[in-house]
């Protein structure tokens, strides 16, 4: 959490419904790019009315701003720094200071317009690997850090952004470069936060580089849904379905040991309507708050003024869309941002803590395998679908990488993995033995021999592709309230299973087991004979058969609840995501609709709720029962303070 952001409003203020002007514990920020028009020259870096922009940001309750250093303009000749240009950065800091805002200074960013790292004297040497350029980079970084070492407006240094990191050819080179930059900053400034400006999940998709070890040496990380990642994971309508879960999925992939800023919040293209843009941004911001982000950063302050070049207007760059239009007029999304900032400011995260996640989704190690292994392509999508199923079952859930400690978890979902390591099987067996529950869906190929003992089933072979999924309930009520169905859905594999001690909960139309449950030690192991998560992901996630989604969320929800990993506040509406922040005398519940139509979610608490109040203030509504309804607008969100009888 930012330590030196302005003082928060008091808890008393929050109770009184007075919105603090600044968000301190959950900052809402924005990327402030140096150039907003394609026709502008790189030399126009922050050569605009910065003070007016910062005033507008402050008015919109934005408290954190990322600014970008341009190596090209600051060091036009080797070793010769342009002080006149550097003054512009001073002006930026002054503007931030004037409005009591904080900045993140990003050193090496590629915005595809301002040519910030394109130093002319570097010739064709690679700034990522060339020793001489590395020296010059260190010199630049230390010069800037030294210049601003007492600047209160700077909250953090960021060594580079994702577009820049994507240019590295190897993990070792990236690691070495990142450490060199970090050490260079630390030599001058030992106090401020240093941010690693790329998300591991998205960068591995874009460049094939697994940067988790590098990310882990930084105090702060970011998660950012890049345009390529969205195209890969959830290309489709932005206001419902998988697209509304991707931001929090990528955030959760940032790991639990880190503070992660939900970065790059916003749409990627200008062909989305302003209403959709506002709805999507609202969803992404609330998702971040509900899934343990340390703050949110909006994608861009102002739309890029693109050249009207015939015949093609649209530009594929992902930094085009801001919260203001090209004339600087605020778009509806900025009002959403202000409203969200006001809500977030009323949630005192020192008094209210999110409930611990006792359910996890395992991201298999095979996910990092390059082609020709297809696991790296299939697994993230399967994990996303599993994540959505868990969210629809209202489980507090996190992502767990294979090999990570399973301590604290009570239920684990392994979605459609083709293979796990021997160590993971051992870990799974120990987990179940000691009382945990596992749901594993068959991912194709030969099942590991460990399946027999752990899941109590005899693997007889892969039946291959099936165009129809049939479910016949053999043991009603054993794993939730399941129903029989036949639906059209291509499943790539189907495990033929023989008896090995497990109870057959459901079968296909021919009697072959579809779902089995096995008591193993103190825990339960559930086996799904088909990779349903992958089947949803690889078919049409926006039009997945309801019966399949019902089956998945029922199984996940039932198993997790039985294992003690269920939600404290339950909900009857799958499209409503619920997050609970527990306090001493009251709790705060945040409810977010992932649906584009109005809906009412009925929340059910474990205790009798005495009253419900909007966190922003207003009169308390008496409840007097465990259940109460929450009306939700399309893609709407509410934050309520609950008191108990």
């Amino acid at each position, binding site marked *: 959490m930012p330590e030196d952001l302005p003082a928060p409003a008091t808890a008393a203020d929050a109770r009184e419904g007075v919105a603090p002007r600044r968000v301190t514990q959950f900052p809402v920020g924005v990327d402030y790019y140096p150039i907003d028009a394609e026709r502008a020259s790189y030399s126009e870096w922050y050569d605009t009315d910065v003070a007016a922009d910062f005033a507008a940001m402050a008015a919109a309750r934005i408290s954190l701003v990322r600014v970008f250093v341009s190596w090209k303009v600051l060091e036009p000749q080797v070793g010769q720094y342009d002080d006149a240009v550097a003054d512009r950065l001073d002006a930026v800091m002054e503007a931030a200071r004037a409005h009591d805002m904080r900045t993140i200074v990003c050193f090496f960013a590629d915005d595809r317009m301002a040519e910030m790292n394109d130093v002319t004297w570097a010739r064709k040497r690679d700034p990522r690997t060339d020793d001489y350029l590395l020296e010059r980079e260190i010199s630049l970084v230390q010069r800037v850090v030294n210049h601003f070492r007492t600047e209160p407006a700077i909250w953090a240094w960021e060594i580079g952004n994702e577009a820049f990191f994507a240019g590295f050819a190897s993990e070792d080179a990236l690691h070495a470069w990142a450490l060199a930059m970090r050490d260079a900053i630390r030599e001058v400034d030992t106090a401020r936060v240093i941010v690693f400006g790329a998300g591991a999940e998205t960068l591995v998709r874009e460049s094939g580089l697994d940067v988790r070890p590098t990310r882990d040496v930084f105090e702060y990380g970011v998660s950012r849904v890049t*345009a*390529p990642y969205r*195209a*890969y994971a959830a*290309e*489709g*309508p*932005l206001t419902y379905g998988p697209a509304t879960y991707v931001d929090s999925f990528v955030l959760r992939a940032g790991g639990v040991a880190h503070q992660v800023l939900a970065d790059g919040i916003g749409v*990627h*293209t200008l*062909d*989305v*309507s302003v209403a*959709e843009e506002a709805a999507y941004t609202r969803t992404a911001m609330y998702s971040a708050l509900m899934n343990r982000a340390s703050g949110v950063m909006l994608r861009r302050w102002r739309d890029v003024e693109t050249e009207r070049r015939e*015949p*093609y*207007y*649209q530009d*594929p760059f992902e930094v085009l869309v801001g919260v203001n239009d090209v004339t600087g007029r605020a778009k509806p999304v900025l009002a959403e941002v202000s409203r969200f900032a006001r809500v977030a400011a009323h949630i005192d995260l020192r008094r209210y803590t999110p409930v611990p996640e006792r359910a996890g989704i395992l991201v298999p190690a095979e996910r990092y395998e390059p*082609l*020709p292994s*297809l696991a790296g*392509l*299939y697994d993230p999508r399967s994990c996303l679908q599993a994540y959505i199923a868990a969210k629809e079952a209202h489980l507090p859930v996190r992502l767990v990488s294979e090999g990570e400690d399973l301590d604290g978890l009570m239920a684990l979902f392994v979605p459609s993995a083709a293979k796990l390591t021997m160590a993971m099987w051992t870990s799974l067996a120990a987990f179940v033995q000691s009382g945990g529950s596992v749901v594993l869906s068959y991912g*194709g190929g030969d099942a590991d021999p460990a399946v027999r003992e752990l899941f109590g089933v005899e693997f007889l072979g892969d039946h291959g*592709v099936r165009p129809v999924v049939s479910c016949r309930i053999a043991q009603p009520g054993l794993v939730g309230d399941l129903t029989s169905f036949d639906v*059209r859905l291509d499943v790539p594999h189907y495990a033929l299973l023989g008896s090995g001690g497990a109870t057959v909960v459901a079968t296909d139309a021919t009697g072959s087991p579809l779902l089995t449950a096995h008591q193993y030690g103190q825990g339960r192991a559930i086996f799904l004979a088909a990779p349903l998560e992958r089947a949803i992901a*690889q*078919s*049409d996630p*926006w*039009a997945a*058969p*309801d019966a399949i989604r019902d089956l998945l969320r029922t199984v996940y929800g039932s198993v997790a609840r039985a294992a003690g990993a269920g939600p404290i506040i339950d909900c009857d509406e799958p499209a409503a995501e619920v997050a609970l922040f527990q306090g001493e005398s009251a709790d705060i519940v945040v409810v977010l609709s992932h649906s584009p139509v109005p809906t009412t979610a009925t929340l059910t608490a474990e205790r009798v709720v005495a009253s419900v109040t909007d966190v922003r203030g207003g009169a308390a509504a008496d409840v007097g029962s465990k259940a109460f309804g929450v009306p939700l607008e399309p893609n709407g969100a509410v934050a309520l303070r609950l008191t108990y009888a």
Partner: protein
Amino acid sequence: MRERSATLAAAESLARQGAIGAAVAACYEALAIDHRDPLVRALLAHLMLEGDFYDEAITEATAAIELDPDCSPAYLALGLAYDRRGGMSDQSVLVWHELAEVEEDLVTAHVQLGEAFAAAAFQDEALDSWKRALELDPKEARATYNLAIASLKREGMALALPLFRKAGELDPSQDELFFVLLGVRDRPAEPVDPAAVEPNREARLAAAALALRDEDLFTAAELVRLTLDEVADDPQALALAAYVYLKQEATNEAMACALRALSIEPTLDTALYSLGVVYARRTGLNRHAARVFIALAKQAGGQALVHVLLAESLLGLQRYQQAGRAYRLAVRLDPACVRARFGLAAAYLTEGRYAEAQWEIRRAAYYDTKRQGLFWRLYDRYTSGGDV
């Protein structure tokens, strides 16, 4: 004829069987032998496209084209990858334009080119492309749907509706619905011989259904006539007769037979189908059509096309939200239903939900191009040196 390594041949074989993982592995083996083989790259692009991994497909297809600028299957894969990925309509226009010139008779290239133009807001160019596609194949349903959507955007639903109807009629899946209701899924192995049919009601009606499935209307009509000669009020026979008339554009007779069948058996789904279709074809009878299709939806609610037919009649009644709901249900039941996708796009457009409409059009293209299997046609032509 291009020479292919045994590894590539194995990869091809696996790919044709749909074994994507094994085929990809075989392609990488083939690349290890010759990493400059455009065929392997094109095949990999296709495999990546099959898995919906668009960026990988773009990479491989681009590599194939760099190795051989005449590699038409790679152009196809590249264009499809751009379109399915979204946000790359400018690049897509270039690719489809190129492919439409290289493969002049490739109707899909013109349809896709039109859609790419439309996504980039070049409506006139888009219209030209779809019209060109219809010149090549007047029965190209997707080009007609796109023209209907364009008409809806410019002139409103009243003028677009006839085009939607026309596109629907071009869609062969409507006949499939009738045969699903009838319980006849496959065409007969041999033509039905009326002389060999046993002289009883069940045998005649079963044979008539098979003859209809085989588009042998004369045989079917004869068998139905023999049945009705014995029992004039046989609802099943009357329903078959209605369908025979319907196929011969004799709508009055079809309506009469269907109504008679329904007066005897009010829930007979095949008769409801024929009556609904007749009503839908006649101007001013949308309200009747909607009522009949609602009744049919109660009988066969699991069939996506039933809801599509209902939605189309609701569009005619300007009940766009209800139509949208019916289309959404159809898409839920069958995500690959191109007709439902376009209809849903139209419903969204009437509500001003342009991005969602665009998405439905893209999904329609996705399923339509997946169904066509064009890659293998171009691939085989390319490998044979253009002789196929």
